[in-house]
């Protein structure tokens, strides 16, 4: 489904800045995922192996 776009035609500068912002946000979210994973493992510590197999 496609309708009329309400977004303005972006200038080149606006496009460049939006792309840069999106890239930075992507890196930030990626770093957050890694941080949460590493912190979870650190919190679990030795207990990560202490479970019935």
């Amino acid at each position, binding site marked *: 489904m496609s309708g009329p776009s309400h977004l303005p035609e972006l200038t080149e500068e606006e496009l460049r*800045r*939006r792309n840069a912002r999106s890239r930075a946000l992507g890196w930030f979210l990626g770093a957050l995922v890694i941080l949460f994973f*590493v912190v979870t493992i650190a919190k679990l510590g030795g207990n990560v192996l202490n479970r019935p197999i």
Partner: protein
Amino acid sequence: MTIAAELLDPASPAYDEERPTIAFGTARDYFELLKPRVMQLVIFTALVGMLASPEPINPILGFASLLAIAVGAGASGCLNMWYDASIDAMMARTSTRPIPAGAVKPNEALAFGMTLSFGSVLFLGLIANWQSAAFLAFTIFFYVVIYTMWLKHWTAQNIVIGGAAGAFPPMIGYMAVTGDVSLESFLYFLLILVWTPPHFWALALVKSNEYARAGVPMLPVVAGPDATRLQILIYSLALIPVGMAPALISHAGWIYLTVATAFGVVLAYFAYDLYRKREGDEGRKAAFRLFGTSIIYLFALFGARLVEQLLPFIPWSLMK
């Protein structure tokens, strides 16, 4: 005028009322909202507070806790910029900040600051403990509501009381590791609290006209430059014993004591120099010299303590 400001300024030829405005800030603009220089100081002092703990620290959890404290401090800086955007626009020193420059809209800054505030507190609570998370939340509240919204616009003692917000990080760092506070972490709080007035007033002396125009009752505006110089001298003299206290009545060692004594005397000398030189360019230079020295002072003291704290971890046996 920046491109962003041109698009948002109704007086500019580039302005179009019909055109919906979109976010214009770069990642750097958002980073600037976090007051990175203040964040550096927070990271540094919180790290010293953490390492003052007698308990071992998991390096990963320690790093993550430090990150949470730094982001919490940055979030409070962002909310400060959101609330004070109109004042910032009136002062040369702050007029290039992202909001007055038109790069970030006030509502975007508010959302960014609130998200980071809640996120950092929640994260610190989950990885460290809820005592330190509550302390971080209180610090953000203190800086944004008590200082920015109330004290700053109400009393000339604004930064004396408000300085507590910037002084809490060593205690939060210690609490993130132990769940408690200690005498040493409290003494670092006291050190930053007493250091804040001479540091800020030295700058306020030079910028008093801008503060007056913006309606901010800084001490030089309300009490005059001479009274401010006297207050700066009194606080700088008080800072000598307060700076030495962590070594004299707590666990800091002789490296810290030597640095605290030497830099304390130097800072007091520059405060005296500012007290004597009241006129013209000389007075202005003396104020800037004291402002710069005060920054070096704090980094030197916490740096000395950090060196002492890290010495036991150096594998001396491998160096033989």
